[in-house]
């Protein structure tokens, strides 16, 4: 059954998603606050913001690296787009995404050329992007005059989607297809699984690392631009904490920090899980720190279930049960 084996990477992320849904339903206790009409819309609005960044960070994790700089890039790209796109939003988008792509490629090139760790390089990138945003905006929040754009971006489409969330969904579909059907996907998995082995098999690992960081930078810039346009303003600190939910989404989606595991579909499910938790808790009227604690608990539970100690214990238990 070739189809079944294609589904296997998604089993765990799907189970986590279901578990979170059950947890929320229990917290709701039958009052029905949760399943109000706006839950799905706000879930996908969040997905439109967190989703692309999670995809970028998740892909860098999948190839065994890590992109810290996305948090800075989202803010910087937002500022750049709002400042340059006043007359033509497409121009702002193009400039911002272009800069994101270039910055990512540059970081990837530094890593592969000088054999540096991605954590060090992207930490540098993060601080530089923050610095540039502050310099550009003189540390103030800047307004985006073109309110029509914000209006268009916030409009509901097909019931619960909007342009940002449609873009996010579309990106995931494209990347999932690339992974499932092309040589490029296999090569990326090989690079993340065992860099040395991939190189000696003839995979152009350095080029793939550079491209992945470029993609991650471009996605972060896209996310920052859409956010800036929707809110009709941008600030240097815009969404500076996006790195935590994005990384969490990737890990929930089955991507390990060691690289090589996890698939785009898994990252999508992970991001949806994070957004569901957030949107659900908002709908239930819970405070934001309750949200953080809950996400922490979910992560901890997964870490424990995944740990080798735990599975050894389970195996031992099974063995002793069979013997008795």
């Amino acid at each position, binding site marked *: 059954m070739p189809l079944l084996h294609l589904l296997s990477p998604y089993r765990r992320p799907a189970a986590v998603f279901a578990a979170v849904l059950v947890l929320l339903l229990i917290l709701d206790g039958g009052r029905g606050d949760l399943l109000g009409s706006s839950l799905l819309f706000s879930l996908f609005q969040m997905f439109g913001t967190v989703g692309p960044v999670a995809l970028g960070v998740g892909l860098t994790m999948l190839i065994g690296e890590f992109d810290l700089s996305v948090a800075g890039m989202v803010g910087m790209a937002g500022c750049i787009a709002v400042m340059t796109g006043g007359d033509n939003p497409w121009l702002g988008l193009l400039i911002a995404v272009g800069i994101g792509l270039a910055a990512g490629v540059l970081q990837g090139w530094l890593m592969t050329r000088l054999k540096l760790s991605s954590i060090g390089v992207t930490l540098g990138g993060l601080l530089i992007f923050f610095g540039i945003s502050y310099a550009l905006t003189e540390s103030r929040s800047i307004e985006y005059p073109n309110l029509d754009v914000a209006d268009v971006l916030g409009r509901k489409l097909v019931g619960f989607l909007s342009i940002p969330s449609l873009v996010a969904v579309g990106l995931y579909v494209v990347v999932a297809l690339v992974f499932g*059907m092309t040589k490029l996907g*296999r*090569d990326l998995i*090989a690079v993340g*699984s065992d860099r040395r082995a991939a190189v000696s098999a003839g995979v152009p690992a350095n080029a793939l690392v550079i491209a992945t960081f470029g993609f991650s930078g471009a996605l972060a810039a896209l996310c920052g631009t859409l956010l800036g346009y929707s809110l009709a303003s941008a600030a240097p600190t815009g969404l500076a904490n996006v790195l935590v939910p994005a990384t969490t989404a990737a890990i929930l989606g089955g991507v390990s920090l060691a690289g*090589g595991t996890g698939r785009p579909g898994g990252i999508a499910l992970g991001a949806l899980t994070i957004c569901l938790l957030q949107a659900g808790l908002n709908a239930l009227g819970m405070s934001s720190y309750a949200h953080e604690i809950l996400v922490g608990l979910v992560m901890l539970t997964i870490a424990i279930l995944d740990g080798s100690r735990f599975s050894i214990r389970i195996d031992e238990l099974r063995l002793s049960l069979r013997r008795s």
Partner: protein
Amino acid sequence: MSAILSVDRISKSFGAVAALQDVSLTLQAGEIRALCGENGAGKSTLVKILMGIERPDTGSIAIDGTSVAIRSPSQAQALGLAQVAQELSVIPSLSVLDNIWLGSAQVPLLHRRRAFRQRAQDALARIGAGHYDLDRQAGTLSIGECQMVEIARLMVRDARVLILDEPTATLSDTEIEAIFAAVRALKAEGRSIIYITHRMGEVFSLCDSVSVFRNGRHIVTKPVDDVDRAGLIEMMLGRSFEDMYLCRQQGATGRPALAVENLGVPGVVHGFSMTVPRGRLVCIAGQVGSGAHTVLRALAGLELATGRVSVDDRPLRLNSAPRARAQGIHFISENRAAEGIFGRMSVADNVIATRLPAASRLGLLSWPRLRREAARLIRDAGVDERRLGSMIGDLSGGNQQKILFGRAIGQTPGVLLMNEPTRGVDVGARAEIYRLMRSFCEQGFGLVMTSTDLEEIVGVADIVLTIYRGRLIGRYEKEAITMNAILTDITHPPALTRNGINEAAAAS
């Protein structure tokens, strides 16, 4: 026959070190050529040059008589040169099919799955591995199966010269047979094979001709029919070779250094018992996966195990490595890189790593004392003292093993456990390691080793225990130690008697 590959007067230096000097070779189509030499003889430099990883300083390479410059691995691939490196490049999270096509220049961006499946399947079938499931995850394959996948990968790339670097180093006998069959099938298709090995037996049973390298020079190339074992070893070492193995200990023995009763590791080892007399070298013989390695790991406290074990008549509580060490059990792993050396630290730091408490006062390390201690230990282990400051990862496998040996035999030696003591160690250093092991035994300590190399087992052991699927099969001493008996036990043992031991063997 025509020359498919010819290498003409190649030299390569790294700084002041001449890795290859004036090397010329020709390889015919359909020839299996063994490449022999000690570590550092220049074999791997030659392979790197052929694979486009290094460039020669002088000299030229010709393929089918046409002179070529190999500037990159992808160019080597296009020219039909390919290698299976010692460290395999199979990606565990991809399927067998994807691994076979990985990195191939022929695959378009979108997979044309059916055609490519068929060609991968053909390649596997031609080397006798047609039963492999193409959709199986490579991570679930054994090392031997991974080797076959790598060979299939070279076949779909239509490589004409295949370089295999010690492909059988970690394989069981049936897997070795599969590799041999695959190599012969490649030869039958007219492909040429360069076969690098430390195992003499394989040179004679598999290869057509042998090229010997020593100190960066190509010494000689001869058909295997024109050389014998002793002559080959002599050419590799450059001096006449006194018997590598030392005579067995025959005298009376004292009290046991180590007694093991009913050792069990769930799923791997079942009811294993043995006694190790003082001054004897005991060898547990078994194939890869037989549980031999696990027995020693369990005794060293590295596996969860049950059973009664005593060291010098004092009972040992299992399942703790520090406790085992405190009672005088020292363990040297078969996996030097992961469990032996600290690769990026100096030789001195490595050799004293386990005895820092002894050389410290009030928790402060005394560096002069440590330095003296380190110098003494590596002198005892037969390594040049000037190496103390070098990074251990840069040393040869043989020297690394000697340093680990020096670290294990401390001021409180009791029992030394060694898994595969000569894996990745060349012929010259092997003899020295056997001598170290023997002198350790002669001081009245017990030594238990495991090995998958039959020749080594018969050569060095005083007592041989055979193990099959985690159970003790037989026990042999003195003249009863023969290759045949051991080989039978570890591959297809006779039916077990009630107490689990082959009685015919036990009676001898």
